[in-house]
């Protein structure tokens, strides 16, 4: 079970409260987690990664285990602590704007 923390705007959009728990088929990677997330909440398609290119949107970041995973390849396995559910996969709206 992968735990995912969404930023407030996306929690509102998906109408969820707190963390989202996802069953991810196969290896847990940022890509497979986002695939599972968008499958459960289709309204989130295009909000985290571009719907056409599937690249991460510029002002969205991925954190886990106190590491910034945003620039990792999307198919790189997530840390074991995320895979086991000990730590969440954090989707963050970047600090920008002021």
């Amino acid at each position, binding site marked *: 079970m992968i735990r995912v923390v969404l*930023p*407030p*705007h*996306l929690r*509102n*959009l998906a109408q969820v409260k707190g963390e989202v728990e996802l069953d991810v088929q196969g290896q847990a990677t940022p890509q497979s987690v986002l695939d599972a997330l968008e499958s459960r909440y*289709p*309204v989130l*398609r*295009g*909000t*985290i990664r*571009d*719907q*056409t290119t599937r690249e991460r*949107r510029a*002002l*969205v970041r991925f954190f886990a285990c106190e590491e910034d995973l945003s620039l990792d390849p999307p198919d790189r396995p997530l840390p074991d602590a995320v895979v086991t559910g000990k730590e969440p996969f954090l989707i963050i*709206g*970047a600090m*920008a*704007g002021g």
Partner: protein
Amino acid sequence: MSGVRVLVGTHKGAFVMTSDTKRKQWDISGPHFTGWEVYHVKGSPADPNRLYASQNTGWFGQVVQRSNDGGKTWQAMEGKFAYDGEPGTHKWYDGSSRPFEFKRIWHLEPSLTDPDTVYAGAEDAALFRSTDGGQNWHELPALRQHSTAPNWAPGAGGMCLHTIILDPKHRDRMFVAISAAGAFRSDDAGKSWRPINQGLRSEGIPDPNAEVGHCVHRIAMNPSRPDTLFMQKHWDVMRTDDAGDSWREISGNLPSDFGFPIDIHPHEPETIYVVPIKSDSEHIPPDGKLRVYRSRTGGNEWEPLTNGLPQSNCYVNILRDAMAVDSLESPGVYFGTTGGQVYASADAGDSWNPIVRDLPAVLSVEVQTLK
């Protein structure tokens, strides 16, 4: 209930304001979609309880919301926007060519007859349509693929398709306007387009009379006279009586012919409204006085409407989609400001009162007349 419903999009959410036909007391709900930029909210002429809203942030992109109960509840639509085929290129500010890149929806225009059909104007300029209530969107690509598109360039606010007008008499005819490409007309439901900019003159482009490149800010039509359109251009207020084949200037005695919105009296097609702004480099009212100008002669002769509007120390702007008129017997005129005020007149502009004073910057104002 007979009355009006005013739909307001702001930099930080949407608001729904309702009143009876007196338009003195208002119920205000919102913010909806708090924290998101809401460029536009508009209701279906065929079903006034069907509303569409465009919400966007730089972080999370574009979402279209739909309401089936007049704005009491909303549902986020899953459909997204993607250009049809190769995006092609347009001109950038420095003259280089850049691929079209979807950024946001500026304007939503529901069909005149079908609540599930709605058009969407995008930045970078393109026209989309949904026929299933906003669930899925498909581009009408002929506009973006027009032979002039590689020469379109963005205005300061981006290369936005901000105006969509559906012709009530010629069902396959529609008009769009793009900053800073100009106005275009389709006579075959969007399968093909032609620029309709003859008569526009723009000093800020190399050829002032060019076929495209004009920064059209807004176009308005009175449905009773669909061949007559009024335009607020970057500079100049214009009119056409032949569906855009030729335009002539009607700025007349305006204190400034720069501005953004333009609208028309619902029962008097020669009565039009604009809000003069000082200049393209100073987006503030002239002399710190917020004045709507009304022409009862189809242009050229304008009178200031000031009763109830601030006449000193006012430095707000009124954006292109932030003015609307209802169709009650004594028509209401509404506009919103970048200072967060929404003003209403229940007597065709003779006097004004604020519905609300302290919203986030207002991006758009629409009104529905409820029977």
